[in-house]
């Protein structure tokens, strides 16, 4: 396996950013797998095979959800927008636009390093488990 989840040289990236990139890559893989299982199930006629694949699909749902929750915990602006969109009845696009607008004013100042109060404040260090020295 390569390290192509990194867009920038890994040795120039902080540990927290490398972790974030790994989970983004994992999220992508889980979403791909969900799509693949949906396609396989759509064409499979063997009931035993479909039962196995439905079980596997449930695992992918779980993995995707765990990856997403991890990323949202570390990205306050993303989390705020997601809270305005997820698990709400009604027009998805409308909720998305509203959530983006609400987070927008703060979001302009919310990037790491911004002085505005919209910045969550966290330096994004989080877990360092496994790191040496």
């Amino acid at each position, binding site marked *: 396996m390569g390290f192509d989840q990194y867009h920038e040289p890994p040795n120039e990236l902080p540990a927290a950013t490398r972790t974030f990139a790994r989970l983004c890559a994992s999220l992508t893989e889980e979403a791909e797998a969900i799509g693949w299982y949906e396609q396989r199930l759509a064409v499979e006629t063997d009931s035993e095979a479909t039962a196995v694949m439905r079980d596997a699909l449930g695992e992918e749902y779980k993995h995707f959800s765990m990856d997403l929750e991890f990323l949202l915990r570390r990205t306050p602006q993303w989390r705020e927008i997601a809270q305005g969109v997820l698990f709400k009845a009604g027009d998805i696009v409308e909720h998305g636009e509203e959530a983006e607008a609400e987070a927008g004013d703060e979001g302009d100042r*919310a990037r790491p390093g911004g002085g505005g*109060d919209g910045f969550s404040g966290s330096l994004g260090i989080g877990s360092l488990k496994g790191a040496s020295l």
Partner: protein
Amino acid sequence: MSGHLLRAHAPISDAAWAMLDSEAQERLVAALAARKLVDFSGPHGWEQSATGLGRVAPIAAPPCEGVVARQRVVLPLAELRAGFELSLAELQDLDRGAVDADLGPLDAAAHQIAIAENIAVLHGWEAAGITGITEASTHDPLPLGDVAEGYRRPVATAVERLLSSGISGPYALALGREQYRRVVETGEHGGYPLLDHLKKIVEGPIVWAPGVDGAVVLSVRGGDFLLDCGQDLSVGYESHDGEGVRLYIEESFSFRVATPEAAIALTA
């Protein structure tokens, strides 16, 4: 969103804030030994006040007869804050592109709060209700001795004792400042670095752990030690005048040991 840091009120540009955050992160990551060893949960936010322990305590006086009353037991999150002051002139020079601005007070505060977290997790913080890893350990401490050449035996003994207790690896070795210095400057007969030999014994990371007294061998398999983080380390604003800006680094957390037998203290 958390506004309690009041960063917008500081006379600091976004570019300078980015440099301060980067500097703080760099200093903190180097010294935050405990986070390299234990499980981390969070950050749950500044509003998080306590960690549930999954236990109850009886309430002696229920509201009326015929009922049993219990109260959930929680571990309150502790806050740590390390204040520092930066010169306004130095901050303005940062904006001019100075690469040698004096950020010494920030570096010192970052180091100090990292040491505080290390001590709380590894040795305990009684006033905050935190029992540290070495405090909780059910094993008798092993003496390290004064000579680094002699460290192999107590480290190997510690690993064997953990195995005998049913604690699987990989293991890690946290070394206090003096013990770390001794290890890295020591080569064995034939020139093989002692650091590499110790890594092979523990099969896990060797961590420079400022604030640690002696050393600690512990399992890093997961599930044994939990750092529960409310607000993760952040830089906030306190006040300023015409000369300087007073800032701080702050975090809130609790810590629990789930498996006391999963670590052994090595005394200096």
